[in-house]
């Protein structure tokens, strides 16, 4: 029955051929007969109320949609349901959707204008002075007062990070098609078809079966297509229902940058007690995340951020407080790492400052305090053998000859720095229990077909899941197909986020394939189908026995497992321009076991590059609540020449409960680069505590 051993080998990716020959169809490549094009009319003020809206269009020709056309509830349903799909009166940010216009001719559509009058109110842009808090969270372990009492030294610090744009190269877009029965079929570039499905049901007041969401080939997401597509799909669906025709709504780059979600800016304060010999006695952290105008996913971003805030370090006394607050800027949302990059940036830069203050080697400080199996985290989780903090640290130090290099570079204008980090796989706390994800496997003549809501957004979902199924079922990789992520056909496997697809959905499919294999017995798939007819196996998430979490006290097993990573960056500071140029980058990752080493490496390299961009180049310039550099000319992401060679080492430590030993990989690579680079810049002589470490900021710090 086929050959074995797809897992662990670099099989050809399922979606590869179409992507290299130009035949893969992305959203904007699709067209439907009679299709209209749509455009979103947005507010231009950061705060106030709408007093009058006057479309300057020939109303017979145009479809004009406003909030009164919403048959269900005017919200983008997610967690708090506070964000309207189309503003009625109140305006909270400069890109709030007010109207949707649609017309069959795009040129005519572009020429349309709408006059909007407002009464402006005073906006707030400072997350520390906001009077709206979306969420606050407290995590306590021990008593920090006791910890500080035992400290020989207390080190304080404040660290700031700013917005980051996901900058998938394919902008957002959807097409909504009326289904002929009052419902709608939505095609879209998106990560989470069932998020869109639910949001549309609420918005349109429709039952499950009248909304169908089909993911098209998606040109990158990075979190940016997690929740925002629900908004766009709502707009297109409203226009489709009103017109009775298919409606395409594709953002151009400027609108995509201006209006859609970004990484939450953060302000994180640390106060740490430490003994003379470098043992952490108390960690106190206060974090504020700028949520932007609406709650979106801020509560859960904050949650992941705070759980990772004290870094991969043991300490008996930990107190963490954090909040996500409202400002009059477009809502921030999901972005690879989901709060953890912000807090671990602070933690790791702070660690180097502690090492400096003690006069000890930063590696030694981390070795002393890094989590070992059996250690207890800030939420009270006892770590198992899947804890590899020390392993990755030592491997990275060895591979880069870190200590020797650090001495050699002293005073040369170059610096070397490292960062140790971890990242929980799957939804936080009881999230996976609540999701109760399902996955389906259908027997085919040759093998099996995977039906999951998990999406391929470049990371390799289709390939990796097919490998797991192939080896478990005992068929060849080629004999496993993957169905489109189409809510009309596939079950809800949960969103494609949170480094959960491999661990959670992969495990569901592994169970399904194991069950299918048992049912097959000695029969081949085609023999089975002939004899018994169709065979479909669906599995549902089961909480691993030992995992427990309490949402009210924030105690317990925050994640069933963590990945571990250590980055080492070498940076050259140009004395003329104050530019920090990353010249070498090494990363060591423990992700259990890589199902597809090539794809895993791709995630690690790409995430590292995105982290390097966040650390040095990427700055969202906001004036009066509006992003003023909303173009690729002025929002700067790394090109080939800005990206150093990235050395990747994947360390195996199979996680027994993971499929074939695997854990998550997608997000963790972006946790480490920023602190590693900032620590390298510090080593080169510039004490900077805010990113991006632009030449302007480095120069200002250096001349202080």
């Amino acid at each position, binding site marked *: 029955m086929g050959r074995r051993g797809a897992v662990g080998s670099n099989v050809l990716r399922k979606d590869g051929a179409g992507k290299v020959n130009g035949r893969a169809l992305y959203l904007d490549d699709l067209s439907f007969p009679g299709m209209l094009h749509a455009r979103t009319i947005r507010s231009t003020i950061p705060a106030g109320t709408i007093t009058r809206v006057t479309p300057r269009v020939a109303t017979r020709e145009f479809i004009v949609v406003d909030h009164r056309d919403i048959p269900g509830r005017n919200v983008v349903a997610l967690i708090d349901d506070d964000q309207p799909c189309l503003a009625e009166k109140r305006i909270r940010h400069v890109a709030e959707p007010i109207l949707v216009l649609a017309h069959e001719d795009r040129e005519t559509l572009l020429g349309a204008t709408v006059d909007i009058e407002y009464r402006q109110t005073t906006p707030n842009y400072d997350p520390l002075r906001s009077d709206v808090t979306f969420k606050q969270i407290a995590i306590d372990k021990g008593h920090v007062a006791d910890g500080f009492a035992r400290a020989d030294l207390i080190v304080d610090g404040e660290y700031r990070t700013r917005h980051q744009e996901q900058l998938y190269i394919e902008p957002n877009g959807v097409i909504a098609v009326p289904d002929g029965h009052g419902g709608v079929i939505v095609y879209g570039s998106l990560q989470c078809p069932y998020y869109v499905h639910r949001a549309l049901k609420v918005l349109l007041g429709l039952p499950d079966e009248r909304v169908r969401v089909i993911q098209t080939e998606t040109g990158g997401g990075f979190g940016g297509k997690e929740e925002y597509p629900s908004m766009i799909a709502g707009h297109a669906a409203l226009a489709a229902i009103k017109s009775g025709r298919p409606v395409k709504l594709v953002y151009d780059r400027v609108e995509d940058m201006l209006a859609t979600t970004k990484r939450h800016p953060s302000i994180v304060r640390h106060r740490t007690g430490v003994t003379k010999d470098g043992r952490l006695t108390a960690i106190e952290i206060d974090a504020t995340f700028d949520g932007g105008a609406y709650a979106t996913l801020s509560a859960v971003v904050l949650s992941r951020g705070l759980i990772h805030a004290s870094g991969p370090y043991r300490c008996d006394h930990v107190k963490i407080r954090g909040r996500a607050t409202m400002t009059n800027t477009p809502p921030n949302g999901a972005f690879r790492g989901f709060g953890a990059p912000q807090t671990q940036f602070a933690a790791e830069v702070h660690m180097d400052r502690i090492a400096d203050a003690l006069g000890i080697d930063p590696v030694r400080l981390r070795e002393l305090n890094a989590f070992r199996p059996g250690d207890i985290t800030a939420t009270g989780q006892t770590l198992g053998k899947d804890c590899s903090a020390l392993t990755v640290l030592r491997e990275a130090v060895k591979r880069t000859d870190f200590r020797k290099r650090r001495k050699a570079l002293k005073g040369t204008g170059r610096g070397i720095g490292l960062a140790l980090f971890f990242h929980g796989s799957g939804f936080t706390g009881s999230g996976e229990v609540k999701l109760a994800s399902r996955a389906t496997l259908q027997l085919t003549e040759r093998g099996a077909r995977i039906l999951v809501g998990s999406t391929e957004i470049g990371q390799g979902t289709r390939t990796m899941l097919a490998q797991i199924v192939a080896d478990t079922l005992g068929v060849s990789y080629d004999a496993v197909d993957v169905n489109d992520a189409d809510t009309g056909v596939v079950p809800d496997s949960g969103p494609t986020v949170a480094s959960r697809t491999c661990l959670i959905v992969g495990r569901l499919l592994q169970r399904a394939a194991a069950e299918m294999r048992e049912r097959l017995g000695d029969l081949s798939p085609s023999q089975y189908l002939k004899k018994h007819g169709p065979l479909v196996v669906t599995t549902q998430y089961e909480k691993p026995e030992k995992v427990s979490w309490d949402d009210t006290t924030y105690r317990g097993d925050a994640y069933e497992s963590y990945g571990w990573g250590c980055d080492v960056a070498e940076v050259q500071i140009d004395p003329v321009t104050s530019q920090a140029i990353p010249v070498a980058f090494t990363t060591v990752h423990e992700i259990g076991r890589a199902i597809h080493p090539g794809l895993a490496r791709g995630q690690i390299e790409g995430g590292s590059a995105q982290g390097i961009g966040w650390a040095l180049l990427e700055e969202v310039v906001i004036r009066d609540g509006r992003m003023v550099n909303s173009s690729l000319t002025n929002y700067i992401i790394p090109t080939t*020449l800005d990206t150093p060679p990235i050395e990747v080492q994947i360390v195996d430590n199979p996680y027994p409960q993971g499929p074939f030993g695997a854990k998550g990989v997608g997000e963790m690579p972006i946790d480490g680069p920023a602190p590693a680079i900032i620590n390298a810049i510090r080593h080169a002589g510039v004490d900077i505590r805010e990113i991006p470490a632009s030449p302007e900021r480095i120069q200002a710090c250096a001349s202080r």
Partner: protein
Amino acid sequence: MPVTIRHRALLSPRSLKDALRLRHEEPDAMPLAGCTDIYVALNFGTLPARGFLNLWTLDALRGIDVLDGVVRIGALTTYTALIQSPIVARHLPMLVAASREVGGPQIQHRGTIGGNVANASPAGDTLPVLAVAQAVVELHSVRGLRLVPFTDFYTGYRTSAAAPDELIVALHVPTPQGRQWFRKVGTRAAQAISKIVIAGVGGRQPRIAFGSVAPTVVRLPQTERVLASGGTILEAQQQMQSEISPIDDVRSTAAYRRQVAANLLDEFWRATGPGSARAARGR
């Protein structure tokens, strides 16, 4: 593209003469060559022009030759052509350096030096080079030919001395005596717009020009004089600050630009001044 083109027109002359006639008849039609600036502006909806004059097909405006040490560069010469030209490499290495810094290969294949001059951005990468090389702009119109020194060409932010009916046909660039120096400090290592850009010619009578520090590219005659008369670099840096007027924008800050301009001046002078290693070796 978020902007409509339907009501816009393209005039396509077959010869330079034809082009000059059209330029005369329809001075509002915007000359268009490699389109690497114009189509970006069109895309952003910041270009009101309704008519365009297509120069791209006028091969007479291409080509590079040299006569008596003066390099004549046709306005339609692309950055790729400049990079690949042995003449430019020999006489104007700083122009090769500047051309390499423009956009990526896709832009270098289409963008033209005439377009860079006509676009009149203070950040134009080749403009400081033309300023220190004391280039001359060759303008044509139905009224005839006119030569304007490059340093007199810009009259203010994105305005020039070219009359509405004139076309930039070529640039005459004398080979400078003295070591050529160019450096662009961009927003990133490639595909970047400059935060500050400098071109210089070293030696006893140094010439220095900066981009992105004033409404137009600027020569620094007083700073040059300080250096030529044996002043210290500190004196020159001080003088320089009165000759530039950088601003805060989305790409950088005035403070950063002032500091980096001073650092670049120092770097330039160390590399090319009488005290430089090259000078010490008697070259």
